[in-house]
């Protein structure tokens, strides 16, 4: 029988917070040129290619799983900015048929597949901690990103709530929005 919950760390190598005004054609073009993906305009959507993924955070704010250090000037010319937040968040991947049930113990979001579609993201709370949730496309899994300083409490809550499913722990893997 497959484990109902598999918990693993999703490590983040590079993450940048890109901000700018998509109504400016030059910014939209610069961002696409820099990252190879068009920054998503629709709330809670994610645009990805092989190398990177751009998560919608707000009308003028995105999280990019990419190294933007060499693009700062290009973005700045188009009125945009990029902040290095590579070490700000830690990620946990919760996989398995009970993943949504587990997350719903700590978060009021609706994790139903038809509401929270694979390949999309949402920001809410995990317990009392701000969190970004991503639903993977490939597997029945979510990745939860929280601020680094809160990691101990979050992993403890995940383990406690998963205990009744008899969860398994898996090795840390790089976070890929697949």
């Amino acid at each position: 029988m497959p484990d109902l919950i598999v918990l693993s760390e999703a490590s983040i190598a590079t993450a940048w917070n890109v901000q700018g005004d998509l109504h400016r054609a030059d910014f939209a073009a610069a961002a696409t040129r820099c990252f190879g993906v068009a920054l998503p305009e629709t709330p809670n959507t994610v645009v990805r290619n092989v190398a990177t993924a751009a998560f919608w955070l707000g009308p003028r704010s995105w999280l990019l799983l990419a190294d933007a250090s060499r693009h700062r000037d290009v973005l700045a010319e188009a009125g945009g900015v990029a902040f290095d937040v590579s070490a700000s968040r830690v990620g946990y991947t919760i996989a398995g048929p009970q993943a949504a049930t587990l997350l719903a113990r700590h978060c009021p979001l609706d994790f139903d597949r038809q509401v929270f579609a694979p390949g999309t993201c949402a920001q809410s709370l995990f317990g009392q901690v701000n969190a970004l949730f991503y639903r993977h496309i490939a597997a029945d899994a979510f990745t939860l990103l929280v601020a680094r300083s809160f990691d101990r409490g979050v992993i403890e809550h995940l383990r406690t709530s998963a205990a009744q499913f008899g969860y398994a722990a898996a090795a840390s893997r790089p976070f890929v929005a697949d």
Partner: protein
Amino acid sequence: MTQAFRLAAGGEIDRARPLGFAFDGAPLCGFAGDTLASALLANGVHLVARSFKYHRPRGIYGVGTEEPNALVQLATGARSEPNVRATTQELYDGLRAASQNRWPSLRFDFGALNDAFSRLIPAGFYYKTFMWPSTPRAWLRYEHAIRAMAGMGRAAHESDPDDYEHQHAHCDVLVIGGGAAGLAAARAAAQAGARVIVCEEQPRFGGSITDPDAAIDDAPVGAWIERARAELASSPRVTLLPRTTAFGFYDGVLVGALERVADHLAAPPPGFPRQRLWKIRARDVVLATGAHERGIAYAGNDRPGTLLAHAARTYVERYAVRPGTRAVVFTNNDSAYATALALHAAGVDVAAVIDPRSAPERDGPLASRAKDSGLAIEAASAIVSAHGRLRVSAVDVAPLAETRSRRIACDLVCVSGGFNPVVHLFSQARGTLRFDDALAAFVPDCLPLPITAVGAAAGRYGLADALAQGHAAGKEAAARTGHRSAADLPEPRSESRGMTTVHALWSVPSKGKCFVDLQNDVTADDIALAVREGYTSVEHLKRYTTLGMGTDQGKTSNVLGLALLAERLGVPIAAVGTTTFRPPYTPITLGAVPGRERGAHVAPTRHSAMHDWHARHGARFATAGLWLRPHSYPRPGESEDDAANREARNVRARVGVVDVSTLGKIELAGRDVATLLNRLYINTWDTLAVGRCRYGVMLRDDGIVMDDGTTSRLGPSHYLMTTTTVNAVKVMQQIDYLLQAVWPELDVYATSVTEQWSATAVSGPRARDVVAALVDIDVSHQAFPFLAAGTCNVRTAQGPIAARLFRISYSGELAYELHVAADRGRALWEAIITSGAPFGLMPYGTEAMSTLRIEKGHIVVGAEADGRTTADDLGLGKLVNPGKWCVGKPLLSRPGLTDPQRWQLVGLTALDGAMMPRAAKLVTDPDRAAPNPMEGHVTSWCYSPNLGQWIALALLAEGRARDGETLWAVSPLANARVRVLVGSPCFIDPDGKRLRA
């Protein structure tokens, strides 16, 4: 003990699984499927409790959540729980229960004296004790007596050993109640494709249906229920929640429900919570919550052996228990005839059915069947009174028109005064109720929200109506949420119809106590008294008599009480109205409310990247906001104070390092950052060069200091702002708000990078040596002067780490701050410790940091900037740039903020070698009688290891003009008074030579 009252066959109990339990220490036996109440009845135990006020013997009265009497103390030790309804507690092997509210025993209760003297303690006597006698001393004395007599069970003293958890859920259609109506609704909604959740209070579905003869779609009821349940359970879009009570309706169609995950077990299985609190957000709700039966007020209607008629029938049909040997049924409607028939079939001698109606068989088919079965029906009659002390032994019955009564011996009285639809959630959702005269009950009327009541909850009794209404409501609810099925599910059908009229007989005038509210001992006379004393509003009546204020919230009593009030007032019941229904519908465990967020998890805790190093090196931790920070690093045998003093001395003599990762950090970028900073801070920012930092102070809109910190210019349009640890979020919110709502035209982007950077401060005369040995840039005073900012690489055991370097100082010493990405924070820290060792470097905690800043006269937000002080009060008035506007500046010129007598920051030195008292106030004459005018107060204080005496920062009226004055710091709480010398707040290096070294 054998189960003498258990039927040989039938019921939903599992005779193959006997369970042992104990009540008041007596070992008893029941079967799996029993409740505590049904198991007690199977053993012939009726007497289970003493009443709240009069300590009258009480028996099991109901069969579910409506139970007012049978409250027991469940389990022992930490899991002991008072006021558990025996009727809802599932039996488990080894269950231990005890009766409550009795001394020394249930059969002989000293408190029953109250019953004898009940004339002295009528309704509202408690309030009257406030009025008479008028001396408060008397009240203080008999308050103890009242408190000792009142109350039910006892809460456990140990902390709760169990866990509780929350579960959020979303659905299209929430069905509350898993009886026939609820299941029909759930099937119809699920078939249309809606996401459905069904909450059922009981461990099994099927609601109150017991009738073994009834059929649905030509199948026995039980078979249909099981088929419907199995169908629903197999659908991935349906969640079935047995043992779950929907207890509250909240805004936005949010329903709170409590799932009793493990209350049917002695202890929760490992990893499982005891209970789970569901927060269900539904788009549409179907209420199939059924109805509660109510009693009739006659003298002695509380004797043990008195049961609600439907309860008695349920004990027979579901639990295979004979609740007595000789029964009298008293009913004002047709439904209780089913009880009479069930009792008869179970071999109970039904002595008579007493019915106030003149021709019961004309009003209902069941009455005719009872008559055909040969049961004696006494029409147009009523029970006048019941006899028996620990168990009912006889009833007096009289025709309505006569006073002469006839006595009938019996050990069981089954009463039905009609039914109250369970409209609690409907009413909590602000739905209005209507009094239905035919049913003599309040039924749901209208509600603007998508909530539909069906079946008995809507006053439509019987399977036929329940199924039809449920099916239609489920289908409509699904349609409203956008789900329609192409092929309609056929509506389930039954021929079984329920009663449609209730003869409104509420009470039978008789001598003796006619109880309305069994749990709170409210009688018909109490209601009459309240009316005589002017409490004629239903809300006043409730509070004066305590009607319906017990843990059962008057489920069997409220409507009866209202009816008696209406009778007394001579108005229709509809004109009296109901009291307000409030959540929770049934009591919920307090532990379920916080769920997992209790103990260490009441609030989240934040740890810096260096936390484990601190812990391994003996740090004691203190909280700062949500953060845990090292307070000090005591060595073996060293106290925390000694450690902090050693650390502080070492910083001034050699060098120390402190973890300042918790400081708020905000990165700002864009063309207009300097403009934003100019508007946020009181001082000037457009002159700040790239590679430089500056200290700044921010005000609230009202001119009071909000926060302080440094901001560095990292690039032409790239800045890093630091805030205090506690205000990090507040400052970020302020910036977001101003940029989004007030100055959207500014080209500034901001993001919090508190979590991105681990930060350390290296301070002390040898700080440069330590840093120079670590980094790859020139950190000499010429190359990297005071308030310089730059980037560098730090050499560590794991290779070079990119870092930001700042020449800023909080201690007043030569100091450098090094920031690295948080995932390298530990490596940086260890590199500093290693590289600093030859120079005598020690880590220091927040206590030493505080000592150092007090010595230097640096303010801290919270102590000196306490939400009442201006920049000028704190000696920072010269920072205010008169030539520009900033947040809070317009209100700085308020008279209150420019008053020359305002309190100003000063330094204090304790004289006579004394210790500075904690949180002292400053006075000129310590011997003056109270109230001794306060000249100011101490805001921060410490022993200064570098000065060898106790010092403090204080706010003092006109303080800066009082240099050299001697005052007294007094602390009545600490019983201390110390002579203090007023001086400058800066005790160390007033010229700043050390930090510019």
